[in-house]
């Protein structure tokens, strides 16, 4: 059976695209004792979908998450799903979190991680698969302070590289809504 081949003439010239972690840069900040502030800086020519954000904690017993509050995006008409909310430039998220005391009792336990799943597209006419990024949470009883790093744990289908972002110099955030 013939092997598949791809000559230069088969693939059309494509626009250069950023890796997902560069197109959508995540940083985390302490907002108060029970709230994490997340910010995605979105590169020019890229956008994110409001309904494609997911948050979880690993291990699940390490913390309880509240309902996330998002900054206001722009409504876009989707031919199948009607109006959908999208973000350009940036999106700010406030995520209530209550760390569990049970996990911190075990000194050998792996540090708990907040898993942020997001998904976005490029104006070039392509969409990225969902990306999972992990933020290490501080142990129970300590201040809610985050190391300035966000680790991409992979997308659906393959691993991504590690990104390092400084969340300490983020601009003042716009008001958030409760959707």
């Amino acid at each position: 059976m013939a092997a598949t081949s791809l000559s230069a003439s088969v693939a059309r010239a494509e626009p250069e695209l950023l890796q997902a972690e560069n197109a959508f840069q995540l940083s985390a900040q302490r907002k108060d004792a029970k709230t994490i502030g997340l910010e995605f800086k979105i590169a020019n020519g890229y956008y994110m979908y409001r309904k494609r954000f997911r948050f979880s904690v690993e291990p699940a017993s390490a913390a309880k998450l509240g309902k996330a509050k998002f900054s206001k995006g722009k409504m876009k008409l989707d031919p199948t799903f009607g109006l959908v909310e999208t973000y350009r430039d940036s999106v700010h998220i406030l995520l209530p979190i209550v760390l569990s005391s049970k996990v911190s009792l075990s000194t050998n336990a792996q540090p708990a991680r907040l898993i942020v799943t997001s998904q976005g597209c490029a104006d070039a006419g392509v969409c990225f698969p969902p990306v999972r990024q992990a933020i290490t949470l501080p142990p129970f009883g300590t201040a809610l302070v985050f190391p300035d790093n966000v680790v991409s744990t992979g997308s659906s289908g393959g691993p991504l590289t590690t990104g390092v972002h400084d969340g300490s110099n983020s601009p003042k955030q716009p008001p958030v809504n409760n959707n």
Partner: protein
Amino acid sequence: MRKFAVLLLILILVLASVALWLGHGDVASEALSEKSATAIHEVVASAGAVYSTTFPDVDGQIQRLGQWEQRLLLVNFWATWCGPCKEEMPILAKLQARFGDKNLQIVGIAADSPLNVANFSKKAPVNYPLLVDEMGAIQFSRRLGNRLGLLPHTVLFRPGGEVIYNRLGVISEGELSDIINKHTPIVFKSD
């Protein structure tokens, strides 16, 4: 004369500094371009591997791509959360209607949940099979040259497995029609 030489030396130093600064700028540009990536890369899956690949359809029935080995097989990777993917589905449906009796078979492979695809199919049915594998679709797409796992991704196989079209982003109906026309048998109609 000596004053002139000093001025000349200062001018040379300034020009050298400017050149060095410009050179540094080039290095920065190169570093930036390393972060981006040209979309389509080499296909690493053999024809045998492609045709032996299986995916479930919306009803959960396992479908083997090899059942279309003798057809001009157009595989379209998509998802319900991908706006550009949904934009091009009417184009794909038109191509299937136009070239279906000339050996073309379009197959959609969704990187999505069966429930999402089933709901989508009710709202916007298409005239070609839809297979579903939330994780496996992107992995398979990567093996066909889509290193970043972007959607939509469309690959056209000649009967036997040679790749003759490989495209990221929304397809061009005209371009794809021309390619399909070149690779479909001419049908003579008798009176």
